[in-house]
């Protein structure tokens, strides 16, 4: 994968306040094109708020948010895909139609989108589920469909807000491996919000640690583990060093 050194996202001293409440302060980090950055921290650390700022759903009150570069231009409405903790599939639509939603809203060519949606469903392991209704799928499968939906309009940036937080532990590990495969295949820049420390290290090319009370950015480091990542890496010494580093920052050691 060609990775230019020009950052795709640049955050410098980003601050967000709700009334009296400081939701984020001094968030400063760069994201290179094609990176998968984990945002990790406890509840109330502002990670979801930061994601919403990146999605253009919230404004920020201070600092600079710049997305896109001359080599990777960025259109905030077309180039973002979102995945939430709940799959949020439309109950009244079949899976394929659910995946097509962003394409419909953006007014893309439906013929091409349909083809792309089928391909994406195959990629997330849901070939054959096109005509099913969401209630016919398990939670993990619904979340796969939600990931396909986030990719259907071919966004450059995918924002994920604890996408596997509601899944059981085993399904979650499996989905982690799947996500890494999808990320490699789709070649997107991904910001992955989680409160799972080992999940953050396992997935991330880089980990940004946010702390709560007061909300601020505490660390930002590159994860130097070989790729592709495998589950047995979690037992390795270097993996343990990274997770310990995060635990220490969160005052949990």
């Amino acid at each position, binding site marked *: 994968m060609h990775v230019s050194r020009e950052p795709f996202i640049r955050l410098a001293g980003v601050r967000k306040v709700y009334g009296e409440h400081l939701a984020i302060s001094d968030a400063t980090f760069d994201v290179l094109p094609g990176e998968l950055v984990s945002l990790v921290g406890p509840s109330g650390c502002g990670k979801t708020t930061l994601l919403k700022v990146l999605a253009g*759903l919230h404004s920020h009150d201070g600092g600079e948010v710049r997305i896109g570069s001359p080599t990777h231009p960025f259109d905030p409405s077309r180039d973002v895909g979102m995945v939430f903790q709940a799959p949020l599939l*439309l109950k009244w639509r079949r899976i394929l139609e659910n995946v097509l939603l962003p394409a419909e809203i953006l007014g893309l060519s439906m013929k091409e989108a349909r083809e792309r949606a089928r391909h994406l469903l195959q990629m997330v392991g849901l070939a054959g589920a096109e005509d099913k209704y969401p*209630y016919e799928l398990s939670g993990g499968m619904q979340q796969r469909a939600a990931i396909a939906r986030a990719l259907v309009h071919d966004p450059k940036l995918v924002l994920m807000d604890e996408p596997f937080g509601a899944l059981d532990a085993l399904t979650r590990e499996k989905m982690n491996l799947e996500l890494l495969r999808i990320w490699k295949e789709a070649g997107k820049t991904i910001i992955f919000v989680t409160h799972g420390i080992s999940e953050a290290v396992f997935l991330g090319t880089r980990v940004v640690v946010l702390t709560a009370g007061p909300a601020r950015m505490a660390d930002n480091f590159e994860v130097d583990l070989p790729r592709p990542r495998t589950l047995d890496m979690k037992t390795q010494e270097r993996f343990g060093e990274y997770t310990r580093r995060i635990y220490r920052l969160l005052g949990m050691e």
Partner: protein
Amino acid sequence: MNTKLGRWTLAVSAHLALLAAWYLFVRLGEVPKFVMPSPAATLDALLQPNYNWWGNIAVTGTEIFGGYLLALAVGVALALVFTWSKTLEAFFMPLLVSLNMIPKVALGPLIIVWFKYGVLPNSIMAFSIAVFPILLTSARGLREIEPELLDLVRQLKGSRWQLFRKIQLPGALPYIFSGMKVGAILAVAGAIVGEFLGSDRGLGYLMLQVQVTLDTPAMFMAVLLITLLGMLLYGLVLLLERILVVKDARVA
């Protein structure tokens, strides 16, 4: 008896049993016709042209369906407007809940003062009584939609219309239908009460006319036809629900 056929058989049997009980009661009890006519005497009334059944059905049907459709449009539209502005909702919703407490029937004489008598005031009566359940369930249904789903559309810079058409309306539909079912029954009552209070046509008006001559068979027939009109409306609502709402999403 849980098979579909078994349930149908039971349902039809219950109706036939009531009919038989009615017949036997009148026949064996030697009940006078002006107190309670037999099923045959009731059916016979339908064949008398002087009651102008079709014309009266058309009038009452127009009042019911007209008032009901207006209630549906206004109820859903108001609920939608409330999703756009929390202030508007906080301002109007408590007021509407209070207005809902007015027994709409008590407004009848006023509606006649304002709109004279006829199809329009009776439709307004049906409307005023049917609109609240539809409005309240629609507002509830629209509120229940996950805010993140709205974020998803807003992030893509979707229009208000797209948001309504693709997310809000289908999402709230199961709730809207539960209000529509309640509203359907109330609309019929509203139209008939309107006709009782002041009108010159319709099945309710006919009942008052024949009451003076103790023409009970015609009154029975009128009640039956009003019931059938209500069943038609209710049946259409059920059918529409079956077509539009995915099974899993239906609210009982």
